């Protein structure tokens, strides 16, 4: 067995998976509460990635950073999460709020419209060309040379470690928030039954805003982690990543938070292993086919419980 290839794909899959998981969490949270597939979520991730890129530019660009790398990373993460969160809240407030009582199809089409608008507005403002975080150039490339080696010479760079560890930390924070805080409790109650929660005195509007803020902030962080490891950002990056995260959320059982994390990992690994072992051009097709199979055979996802429709 070729351990080098296997470990390379494993590392790539876990890194990708961490990013997908973070995006998928937002998809799942919003779906859990509003039963809405927020197609614009991938574009929030794109905006987060561009905010990170903007911060790098503000601090002198990749080749001549004027601050410590850790400070830079912290500023990037905070700004991207804030920007993502605010964008998510605005999308909810102006595009979705009025459609809560509308037939199911109306918010879905609106979400498509929001996604299309964000992508093209980003192209107008930021240009269609690819931009690069160029983390190889930070501090003379010391970021990537540090890290550790796996057996058979596969190197894991610091950016990959940062992305995976950062994602895990954010997920732990999210779990703590949802399990232990008052707002988290309100979120769980709202996702269980919105009307009953409103009758119990929960301010449902506030809970929904909080959900959008947190979910979109996670997507913004995912944008920064992705840029850090895979360098490139461009206006249409959100669509593809959104699709994958979406598959992750569905595979894990949409509305189920641990499921979203597992789903993200599964999709990340499936993607990188099919690139490594089967075919790089058809890896998308393979992932889509897997998804369609999961959807048809187990519509509630791998970890989801089958929903019984009550009348």
């Amino acid at each position, binding site marked *: 067995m070729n351990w080098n290839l296997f470990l390379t794909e494993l590392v790539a899959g876990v890194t990708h998976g961490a990013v997908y998981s973070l995006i998928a969490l937002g998809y799942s949270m919003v779906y859990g509460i509003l039963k809405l597939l927020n197609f614009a979520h991938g574009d929030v991730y794109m905006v987060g990635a561009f905010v990170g890129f903007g911060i790098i530019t503000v601090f002198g660009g990749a080749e001549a950073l004027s601050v410590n790398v850790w400070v830079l990373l912290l500023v990037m993460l905070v700004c991207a999460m804030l920007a993502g969160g605010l964008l998510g809240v605005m999308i909810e407030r102006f595009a979705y709020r009025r459609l809560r009582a*509308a037939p199911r199809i109306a918010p*879905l089409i609106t979400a498509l*419209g929001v996604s*299309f*608008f964000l992508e093209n507005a980003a192209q*107008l403002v930021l240009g269609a060309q690819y931009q690069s975080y160029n983390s190889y150039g930070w501090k003379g490339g010391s970021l990537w040379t540090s890290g550790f080696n796996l057996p058979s010479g596969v190197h894991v760079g610091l950016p990959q470690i940062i992305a995976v560890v950062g994602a895990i930390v954010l997920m732990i924070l999210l779990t703590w928030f949802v399990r232990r805080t008052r707002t988290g409790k309100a979120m769980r109650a709202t996702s269980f039954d919105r009307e009953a929660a409103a009758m119990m005195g929960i301010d449902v509007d506030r809970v929904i805003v909080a959900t959008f803020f947190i979910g979109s902030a996670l997507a913004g962080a995912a944008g920064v982690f992705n840029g850090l490891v895979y360098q490139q950002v461009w206006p249409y990056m959100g669509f593809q990543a959104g699709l994958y995260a979406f598959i992750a959320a*569905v595979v894990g059982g949409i509305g189920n938070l641990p499921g979203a994390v597992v789903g993200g990992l599964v999709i990340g690994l499936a993607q990188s292993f099919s690139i490594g072992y089967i075919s790089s051009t058809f890896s998308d097709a393979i992932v889509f086919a897997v998804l369609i199979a999961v959807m048809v055979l187990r519509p509630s996802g791998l970890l989801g419980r089958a929903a019984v429709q009550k009348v």
Partner: protein
Amino acid sequence: MAGSGSDIPPVPTRPEQAPAPRIGVDEWVATHEARRDLGRGLVGVVRRELERVPRPGFYLAFAVAAALLPVVTSNGYVIRVGFDTLLYMLLALGLNIVVGYAGLLDLGYVAFYGFGAYGYAMLASPKFGLHWSTLAVVPVVVVATAILGFLVALPSRRLLGDYLAIVTLFFGQLFVTVVQNGQAMSFLGFTRPYDVTGGPNGIPDIDPFNAFGGRISSLDGYYYAALAIFLAALAAVYLVDQSRTGRAWKSLREDALAAELMGMPVNRLKLVAFAFGAAIAGLTGTLFAALNTAVFAADFDVPTLIIVYAMLILGGAGSLGGVILGALIVNVSLEVLRTPGHATWVFYGLLAATLVVKVRPWRWLAAVVVGTAGLGFAAHAVAAAAWPRGVHGEPAVGGVLGSGLRHWVLLPTDPRTIGNVAFVCLVLAVLWVTTLRGWAQKLALVPTLYLAAFVWENRLIDEPSVTRLILVGVILIVLMNARPQGLVGSARVEIV
């Protein structure tokens, strides 16, 4: 109990003329505002007269007008736009069956369009050396697309709304991915790779429509072919709409569970709707391939899907007149946006129309317009004195409008950066204005309008291809929030 039979009042028979109430639609409530508006002034009279014309009358009028287009103009570009509009009408017509009637959100719809186009391309081009007659290809492709639609719907028929949207979206992505990389496909890796779809190079040199030894070679010919096909499809959809199946689809849309309990074959209805919609998309694909003589995967990706959805939503999902109107408005506006001079007129016309409709009474409207004009001239005067570089540019439009704009809107020499900032500010300002009420809103409207003109002249006009797509996104968001029934659809009121 013996005498109770005589106590039951006789079943009242419905008067023949009374229209049957539509399922799930409370007619009286839904048309309340319409009735209130009706009958006042000249508009009311005209509207009432138009209401009396039976629906097919409108379609006939449309057919006559469309047929006269090549007679009126010999401008190839106009006829080409007319042809494209007819294609979009066909696409929207097919999507209307799936989304508008049956209420199934099909996000893989353009894949059927692409399947039809590629099907025609493979059977009538040098690609595989097949040059079938159009009379053979088109039926084969249409039936094959219908079967594909059936197959896609088959596993998804149990899925509830959102899941159907997901599966079909991924089917669409799967189609594009496979076609894009189809230049070296092998059967599960066992055979040698075959070039099936031409990959990124597409399939070139496609045969034109040919039958009985003749062939369609002129643009006019294709225009009439598209028109004939559209009218035939329209008639078919109209008849189905009036039939038992059409009513069943609409009841499915309103409440699938109730429909099932009423004994409707819900699964079969979904499959038929999918197959029917797919067949129309496949038919449209053959027309597309035959006129363009080449097909590429990129034509069948998400942007096309969103444009067709925008057409359907703008016109009003579930309404045939809406399909025609929506496709016409969206496609013609998208075409007009290509030429900066025309686009500017459309932009200001649209702004004016929105203001007239939304700002009432007219005193407020006059105040807003005067205020905006005054703000512009004042800003221009100040800028001319303090920041000369800010007024040096040229408006994209000439004539009266252009010379007016030159003295009104700021036109910096290098507008890119400031235009981008202004664009973001404009989006925020518009969102902010929607949250205000009363005089505060009118007051905020003045600088927002000026900002809109500034962004338009300095940024949007320079990037027509992006502006068009932004516009499509905005149409979807605004319509879904403000008028989900579209321009001519009937408002649906939930009955609890």
